[in-house]
């Protein structure tokens, strides 16, 4: 009875490891949430550096750094980044636990992606908005803060939400440094009885529920915030 044993094993694993699996869900959500929020905040600064008009010398130097950062982080797997950060910090004498290191990695990673998302959002705001703000005497920073970013973020809401959902799934790679999130918790549970398929089925269902619920909530938020701001060039 293959099916009976398949579901039977799933039931047994869930029963026996429910606490660890629940903890794993908590860790996965923590990683995704912190990663997206911290990544978003830093990305706001980085996208400002990337898109600032009439940039001075300092800004242009910072821009080189930001561009390099985005290229390197987006061009390498998060798993590799996690291992490099985790062990290089340890070599430098910073003894951090896997979770802290994981939070750091996912934040660093998300920053790079959201920097590009926000850059796109900023560039989608009509240049007339910028000129109008400058023409009433607002400085470059005020213009970005009060006029451009509110619109750019609104335009980017879907992509930012998507990044959160991607994070839920992609943080599974952090098992390489020993973070016990959903994937790792399920794997450890399954390993006791050498039941990988059953354990991963549990993980898959959990991920599916998490991503579907998140995308449902994000859609509701998007709706409340309103449809993306787009200047209609017609006179009406």
């Amino acid at each position, binding site marked *: 009875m293959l099916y009976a044993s398949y579901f039977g094993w799933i039931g047994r694993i869930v029963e026996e490891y429910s606490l660890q699996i629940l903890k794993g869900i908590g860790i996965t959500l923590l990683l995704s949430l912190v990663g997206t929020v911290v990544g978003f905040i830093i990305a706001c600064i980085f996208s400002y550096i990337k898109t600032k008009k009439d940039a001075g010398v300092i800004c242009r130097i910072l821009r080189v750094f930001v561009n390099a950062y985005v290229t390197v982080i987006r061009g390498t797997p998060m798993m590799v980044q996690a291992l490099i950060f985790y062990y290089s910090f340890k070599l430098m004498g910073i003894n951090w636990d896997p979770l802290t290191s994981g939070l750091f990695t996912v934040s660093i990673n998300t920053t790079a992606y959201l920097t590009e998302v926000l850059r796109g959002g900023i560039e989608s705001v*009509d240049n*007339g908005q910028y*000129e*109008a703000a400058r*023409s*009433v005497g607002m400085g470059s920073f005020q213009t970005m803060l009060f*006029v451009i970013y509110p619109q750019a973020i*609104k335009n980017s809401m879907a992509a930012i939400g998507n990044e959160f959902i991607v994070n839920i799934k992609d943080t599974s790679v952090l098992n390489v440094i020993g973070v016990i999130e959903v994937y790792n918790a399920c794997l450890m549970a399954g390993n006791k009885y050498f039941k990988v398929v059953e354990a991963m089925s549990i993980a898959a269902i959990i991920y599916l529920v998490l991503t579907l619920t998140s995308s449902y909530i994000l859609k509701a938020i998007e709706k409340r915030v309103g449809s993306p701001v787009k200047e209609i060039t017609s*006179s009406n």
Partner: protein
Amino acid sequence: MILSIKNLKKDFGDGEVLKDINFNVEKGECICVIGSSGSGKSTMLRCINLLETPTSGEIIFDNQNIKDMNVNVLRSKIGMVFQSFNLFNNMNVIKNCMVGQIKVLKRAKNEAREIALKELERVGMQDFKDKDVKSLSGGQKQRVAIARALSMNPEIMLFDEPTSALDPEMVGEVLNVIKEVKDTGMTMVIVTHEMQFARDVSTRIVFMNDGVILEDSPTEEFFTNPKNERTKEFLKRYINSSN
């Protein structure tokens, strides 16, 4: 003299858009700048509040070379109205008129609100104060844009083809508002293609062609007795098209 432009030149790449522009604006004057498209009218206007950086020449505003002024202070004293309105999409009507006052002039919120309301009333948009700017018609948007500029209590107003993006039936309401603003004694420079309006509202006409000012004369003289051949030609075409 509130504004004086001397030997103003502006290049874009290898194209010379403005070649030696000279003219003065006295307080209370209303100057219409006319000329065919590509003659440099808008560029000249945009040089005045440094939305474009002049290649060479001097612009003196309030007895100060604008090069020596803080650019944000300069702009806060110069109201600008754009062809495409450029209302802040993330704010409602009254906030559009308040944000500059609060963030640039550091006025208190209540004071800013009062002034914004007064200016919205002046352009007939007070009933729309809490409306989303996206829900407005083109004419209404431009009236709000004028109120936004007036809320800063500028010393001079610049209009960059304020009716060019409007449906024909909305041109009138915007021109009327501009006329009313002029009647309060506001100094204005208006780039426009509306010849009849220019004739009605302005005290002086500046005619530009190919980056130079060909004619700068009192309005009636300009229309009845143009000196330059190119101006005559331009006016002939205008008269023909309006008949």
